[in-house]
């Protein structure tokens, strides 16, 4: 943090300065250059994810706390080096088929109103709204945290799709990279790599690599999933009886009561 960042004469309650609409939701951001945020060394965003909306996987340069203001859904946090502990049953082997293509992935967690989700800097995450009402989250990025060794500006690294950086409008005057990015149509990190190298690395066709780079995708950072998102996860009922905390059990009991 630079000197004189906190010489504030007056504090104000602030509304978001910027809104970006996507296929299945929107992202609103507060200007990270506002003196209040510069003083605190943070940036703030609000996401609204419509039912069946998927916020595409991304990571940022700062540790993040995300509060679920309303709604419910599921989220996956992708921690490098951790095993894929959610695995489909290996039915293929019984029928003489290879089990290699049974899906497996890292743990998925449900979230609901009132939850806080913590994410270290550089750890990717996705969210899906599986409820009937919008999911609204408020996200704080602690850009002054020691985990962030880049500058004090919030940066979002997209692993998929072709979304804008929602903080871009407030910061576009401040970096050459941003001016460059306005001239190009592809924003996820696969776009910057040579197609042939990616084809070698993934051992797939170049046409499939171009799908990863997704230059023609204009759905934005929150996309609509057709039908339900089919993933491997334990049933809600099983978890409520076996593994959840007392507080969670009460929540689940409440749900059960409504169901009955």
């Amino acid at each position, binding site marked *: 943090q630079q000197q004189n960042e906190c010489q504030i004469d007056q504090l104000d309650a602030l509304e978001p300065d910027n809104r970006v609409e996507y296929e299945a939701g929107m992202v609103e951001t507060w200007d990270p250059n506002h003196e209040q945020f510069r003083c605190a060394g943070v940036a703030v965003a609000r996401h609204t994810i419509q039912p069946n909306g998927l916020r595409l996987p991304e*990571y940022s340069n700062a540790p993040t706390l995300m509060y679920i203001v309303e709604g419910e859904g599921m989220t*996956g946090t992708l921690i490098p080096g951790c095993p*894929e502990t959610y695995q489909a049953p290996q039915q293929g082997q019984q029928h003489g088929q290879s089990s290699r293509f049974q899906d497996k992935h890292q743990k998925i967690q449900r979230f609901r109103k009132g939850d806080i989700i913590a994410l*270290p800097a550089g750890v990717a995450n996705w969210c899906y709204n599986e409820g009937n009402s919008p999911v609204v989250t408020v996200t704080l990025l602690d850009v002054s945290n020691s985990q962030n060794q880049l500058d004090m500006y919030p940066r979002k690294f997209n692993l998929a799709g072709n979304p804008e950086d929602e903080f871009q409008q407030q910061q576009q005057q401040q970096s050459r990279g941003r001016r460059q990015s306005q001239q190009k149509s592809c924003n996820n990190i696969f776009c*910057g790599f040579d197609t042939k190298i990616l084809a070698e*690395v993934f051992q797939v066709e170049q046409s499939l690599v171009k799908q990863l780079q997704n230059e023609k995708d204009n759905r934005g950072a929150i996309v609509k999933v057709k039908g339900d998102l089919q993933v491997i996860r334990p049933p809600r009922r099983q978890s409520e009886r076996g593994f959840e905390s007392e507080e969670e059990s009460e929540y689940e009991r409440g749900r059960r009561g409504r169901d009955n």
Partner: protein
Amino acid sequence: GLEETICTMKLKENIHDPSRSDIYTPEVGRITSLNSLNLPILKWLQLSAERGVLQNNALMVPHWNFNAHSIVYGCKGNAQVQVVDNFGNTVFDGEVSEGQIFVVPQNFAVVKRARGQRFEWISFKTNDRAMISPLAGSTSVLRAMPEEVLANAFQISREDARKIKFNNEQPTLSSGQSSQQMRDDA
């Protein structure tokens, strides 16, 4: 006493010795990491190092350093290197030779590929427990996601999502040799 702690603290460790490799694939390459787990003084310095060797046009898969900058010095041979920023811009795309240095900022994605027989490098990392997050291979971030998330994110079939997840089983180093699946359909 100090003489029993700081004064006797281990200050030296060799990471050139191939037998110390943490990641090793014959004919492809090896990587040795030195961090505060195997040299505790690095916790004080909040620094770590990585020694790498790539052979025969092999690749170190695209990855990002999620808690450190990486300062890479070419020790031997040449490599093709690409570095990508948060906008998907290629901020470096060129050849790095012996004696040259380049910086990979935290969270920027990078891929290295040996040009010819061999590329050797030393990376200094600005965290005593520096960690990478690969974009491909058995420990990759894409593999950690459900197929359905990949299919919806990239607008591809579940079959293609499986290929992206499972075709490359190698963790960090890739041979870079063309497979039959790698047809250029352009």
